[in-house]
């Protein structure tokens, strides 16, 4: 079993690519693209859900003005 082209370092001056699974570069680039783009998509969806929940919480506490007043009171007490 060998994942790379290197079976001995004796002829090290003849070697080029030494990483495992040479020939799979296109697949690896595609995987990197999937990771990158997939992360952005995940982040946008998560952010949408988080902001929606936070806006509901603010409404549930009586609106922006009420929340800001409560925070000011807390700061004064601190």
């Amino acid at each position: 079993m060998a994942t790379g082209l290197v079976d001995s370092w004796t002829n090290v001056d003849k070697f080029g690519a030494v990483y495992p699974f040479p020939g799979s570069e296109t697949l690896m680039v595609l995987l990197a693209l999937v990771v990158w783009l997939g992360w952005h998509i995940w982040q946008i969806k998560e952010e949408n859900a988080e902001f929606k929940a936070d806006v509901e919480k603010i409404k549930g506490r009586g609106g922006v003005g009420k929340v800001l007043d409560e925070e000011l009171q807390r700061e004064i007490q601190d």
Partner: protein
Amino acid sequence: MDNELSSLSIIFMEFYYWLTVALMFLIHVGFCMYEVGASRYKNHMHTLMKNTMLIPLVTVTFYLFGWWIYFAFVNGPGIIGGLAEAPFATPWSELMGTHMGGAPFQSTLSADDTAFWARINGVFWAAFLLFSWTAASIVSGAVIERIRPSAFWILAVIIGSVTWIIDAAWGWSWNGWMVQKLGYHDAYASGVIHAIAGGFALGVLLVLGPRIGKFRADGSPRNINPHNPWLVTIGLFLIYTGFWGFYVACNVPIIDIYGSGVLDIAGRHFFSATNIYLQPTTLSAITVNFLMSLSGGLMAAYIVSKGDSFWTYSGGLAGVIGASAGNDLYHPVQALLIGAVASIVAYKMHYWVERRFKIDDAVGAVAVHGYAGFFGVVVAGFMLWGYPSSPFDSYAPITPWGQFIGAIIMFFVLGFIPAWIISKILHGMGLLRIPREIEMVGLDIDSEAVRQIEADEVAKAIHAEANSGA
């Protein structure tokens, strides 16, 4: 040193390792910030000093016996041979002092020894010393807020100057028995620093017990939050910065692989950077792989922790650690993906172990270093299956089973077991944990009281001055 080119080569190597030492200092600045931030305010000064004082203790003991162990223990001893000779590394060796490379006055050394080691011994010792500090610092974070400093400092010496350097002799040297017989490959120390330190921390934690208030009566954990989460993340960021020095120090900057120090083939030359096993790599490759594995770790940890700053930064570190075993050879995208998986493993395992076994690891050190490091060693066995572990063809190749046995040796044999035994002894002597009253009020009780008294005195003096009309 009578030839300019060879002198330049030697002094370049000397400077190279010196630079890595200066960079690796930042790891310890980072650890101090990280642990101080992670602790509650009532303990923060003791936490700082606990981490700080491992530095001189590990330094002195590494001088006294750590450096010698690295060279002397390559065969076990008693596994493939006896103790190896290392007259340049004993604390009484003339080569441990300032030396210009001329003929030795000590009979244990030869002229070749002094010519080679005079300019390299000190900086090489120092680079390894910084790794030793790192091993001990990793343990330091897990045990904050309840371990006695004196107990921790004994444990720090054990991991910093004994057990990790034994594992380095075995599996992180050009001729260690694990490399020869198991094909063990761990270029940037997933196992030899991180898995062993994580295993060691777990061994201590099992005996030390959780902080008071960590677990509810039903066994569910509470979060004991850092008093300064910003300091924690900046500390981790500094650890990343210092990690650059770590990576670079793991390499030999330039060596002739066909030369007399390695394959000794007449008429051929190939000058290259190598890893510690004297296999060729490039600084360029490890630079890209470090960044890609860090990125994979950060991105994956951000997702699993839903953007938690502590776990995102910790995940970045776990990513680098997870890919480190093979980052000399991986393709950058392989490093990215391995880093991502390593950080998920660290995060999930931390919380599973916490819930299942009631282990209070204050900073996730066992997970980020231990589990991610173990994972990294094992993954390298599959990714690099069949690669030679050394330029010397008689050595075993890299295999999944060789790597798995290696990971077990690192995490359990040299990490967990010695830590558990020594912690049990310290605990039996009543020396492991601070008194309950002090843990509840805070380790900094005395210094805080003095600060308060002094602040009051200054305030009174100012008032008196103001009221005197002067």
